[in-house]
């Protein structure tokens, strides 16, 4: 019996982390399907962004209620990982609360703080559940969130509650066994919350409480491993990706859209008086895919945009601040991110099913997921970008897709084509002659 537990536990850990590593590998592979973009400059500003926004939650608290409750869950998650380390060591070595003798009073403080955090997490998660299902905040009952995205959010809340309850029950049964005459377990830890739960074990035999303790202990760690592996399928992936996502986020002013380098070369050639108009085109690389202007599918987006899609928590702050969405138009920045992720997952599955090569499936992000109507409703006001708690830019995807519509398909709305023709011919979006530009000077 004595080693069976430990071996079983070790197998469980290997399987749990093994599956998790496979998922992470797949996510990295999919993100790398995007085109390259340099986001390695200015590491100092990037680390600062990560520290302030991901670690420090500075943008979360812009909406104080959700922000503060989120901090409970977030700190709870981070801190309880220390406890997890002890659980793993105990599980592998068959020890009980191995850190206690080494940490002394610090250990008591740690366990006590875990307990307080656990109860705060349960409180926060309950409020979150009420906001989603009972108070029905507009951004949570939005049409973006039907089916899996809706239940996914609830599963996470249920899971967190169960994990915290198991943690407290584990501590309560532990405390009970520490205090029974003779002491089945050695004294360790301080239990400000579970001391009130412990009395439920009064009157039970020590053997039964030991079995209960072991059950809570196992369910808790198995639950954590399942939860970890669920991340891959869930919006909850943000707990990991928020960190790289804020690190690699755009550092330039929000109004600065990138200049397409491929276009720059062509325009320079067009404007160069010395260019030979009859020169043969440079020999094309037979194997190279023809360069596309803008984006119609996930492979045309850059890897940061794809990382953005995996990081999105579907919180809907972007959509609730979007002027187009607020006035009943079809655009929802959150849906742009969810669509990008869904399509990317689909492309990834296609690659897996076809031995590592993408086989065209006659589908694309444009039209099959995101319609031109959504794209044209955007005012490029950056409200969604400003609002995102983890610096995602739905706007950059919208702009790249507009570029595809205009430069590859000439599919701009008619009035925009007229505007562009005016700029081309008269140097102004309206039909006025450039020669009249200074007329205002003499008008009254």
């Amino acid at each position, binding site marked *: 019996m004595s080693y069976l537990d430990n071996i079983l536990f070790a197998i469980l850990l290997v399987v749990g982390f093994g599956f998790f590593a496979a998922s992470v590998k797949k996510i990295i592979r999919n993100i790398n399907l995007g085109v390259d973009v340099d986001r390695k400059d200015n590491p100092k500003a990037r680390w600062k962004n990560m520290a302030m926004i991901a670690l420090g939650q500075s943008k979360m608290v812009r909406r104080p209620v959700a922000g503060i409750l989120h901090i409970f869950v977030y700190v709870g998650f981070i801190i309880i990982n220390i406890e997890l380390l002890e659980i793993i060591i105990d599980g592998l070595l068959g020890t009980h609360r191995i850190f206690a003798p080494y940490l002394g009073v610090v250990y008591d403080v740690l366990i006590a703080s875990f307990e307080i955090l656990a109860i705060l997490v349960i409180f926060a998660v309950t409020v979150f559940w009420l906001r989603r299902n009972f108070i029905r905040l507009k951004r949570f009952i939005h049409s973006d969130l039907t089916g899996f995205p809706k239940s996914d959010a609830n599963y996470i809340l249920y899971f967190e509650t169960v994990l915290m309850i198991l943690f407290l029950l584990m501590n309560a049964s532990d405390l009970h066994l520490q205090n029974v005459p003779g002491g089945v377990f050695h004294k360790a830890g301080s239990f400000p919350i579970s001391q009130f739960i412990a009395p439920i074990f009064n009157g039970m035999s020590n053997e039964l409480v030991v079995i209960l303790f072991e059950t809570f202990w196992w369910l808790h760690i198995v639950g954590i491993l399942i939860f970890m592996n669920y991340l891959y399928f869930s919006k909850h992936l943000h707990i990991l990706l928020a960190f790289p996502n804020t690190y690699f986020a755009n550092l*330039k*002013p*929000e*109004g*600065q*859209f990138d*200049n*397409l380098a491929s*276009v*720059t070369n*062509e*325009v320079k050639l067009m*404007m160069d008086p010395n260019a030979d108009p009859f020169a043969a085109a440079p020999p094309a690389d037979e194997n190279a895919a023809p360069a596309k*202007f*803008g984006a119609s599918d996930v492979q045309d987006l850059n890897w940061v945009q794809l990382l953005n899609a995996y990081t999105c928590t579907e919180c809907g702050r972007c959509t609730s*601040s979007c*002027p*187009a969405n*607020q*006035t*009943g*138009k*079809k655009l929802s920045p959150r849906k742009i991110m969810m669509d990008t992720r869904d399509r990317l997952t689909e492309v990834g599955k296609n690659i897996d099913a076809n031995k590592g090569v993408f086989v065209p499936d006659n589908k694309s992000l444009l039209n099959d997921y995101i319609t031109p*109507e959504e794209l044209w*409703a*955007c*005012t*490029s*006001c*950056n*409200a969604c970008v*400003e609002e995102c708690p983890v610096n995602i830019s739905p706007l950059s995807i919208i*702009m790249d897709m*507009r*570029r595809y*519509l*205009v*430069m590859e398909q000439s599919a*701009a*709305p008619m*009035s*925009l084509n*007229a*505007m*562009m023709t005016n*700029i*081309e011919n008269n*140097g*102004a*979006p*309206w039909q*006025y002659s*450039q020669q*009249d*530009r*200074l*007329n*205002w*000077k*003499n008008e009254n």
Partner: protein
Amino acid sequence: MSESLVVPTMAEMLAEGKQPEVLFWVGCAGSFDDRAKKITKAFVRILNRTNVSFAVLGTEESCTGDPAKRAGNEFLFQMQAMMNIEVLNAYEAKKIVTACPHCFNTLKNEYPELGGNYEVIHHTEFLKSLIDDGRLTVEGGQFKGKKITFHDPCYLGRANKVYEAPRDLIQKLDVELVEMKRSKANGLCCGAGGAQMFKDAEPGNKEVNVLRTEDALEVKPDIIAAGCPFCNTMLTDGIKHEHKEGEVKVMDVAELIANAQDL
């Protein structure tokens, strides 16, 4: 009002062998739109009164390409940008001031990569610097005690973090500056950005400019101040939609300053 405006062009300046302190980029709206032309003239009146040495490109100016770029036409944008950069560089422009946040953003942020490097400032920042340097003094005048709210243009505020200069200017007028529930980084778009100005809105249940006008009317202002010719148009239309044109005026910050000084 009747005194005529002195508006030298860069070409005239060059002919005299002079380089102005600042190049005033008028923009398409400021040149052609009847409402926006009033903003242009108000700003020029202040420049004339404060003896700022400035010049415009006049007929040599062309669209920065902002609406083309936001509409997704990178070709047209870069064509416009490179032509403008050639002109600006030929005049050795160093400092550019503009009353249009779209021109401001494009010249400031998107031209450098294409070879156009200038110090670009919005007219509210420029007016603020004139006051700070003691070249311009502003008193309340006809606006004293009025209630004014400022609408943050997206391409000035969120896009480039200029929030304080226009507010500082308004406060110089001895007025009551009231903030809308959504302002600064949380400001709501007027509905014109991203080339929306030049097309019909997608189907919805309301126009963005009407929603934004409702935000503004909620604080019961006498004047809605703006710092963008497009916002000005959108909010003016919004006021008309709400039938409030008799009670509430939409004015550019430059117009407020010029009118307060009876320029």
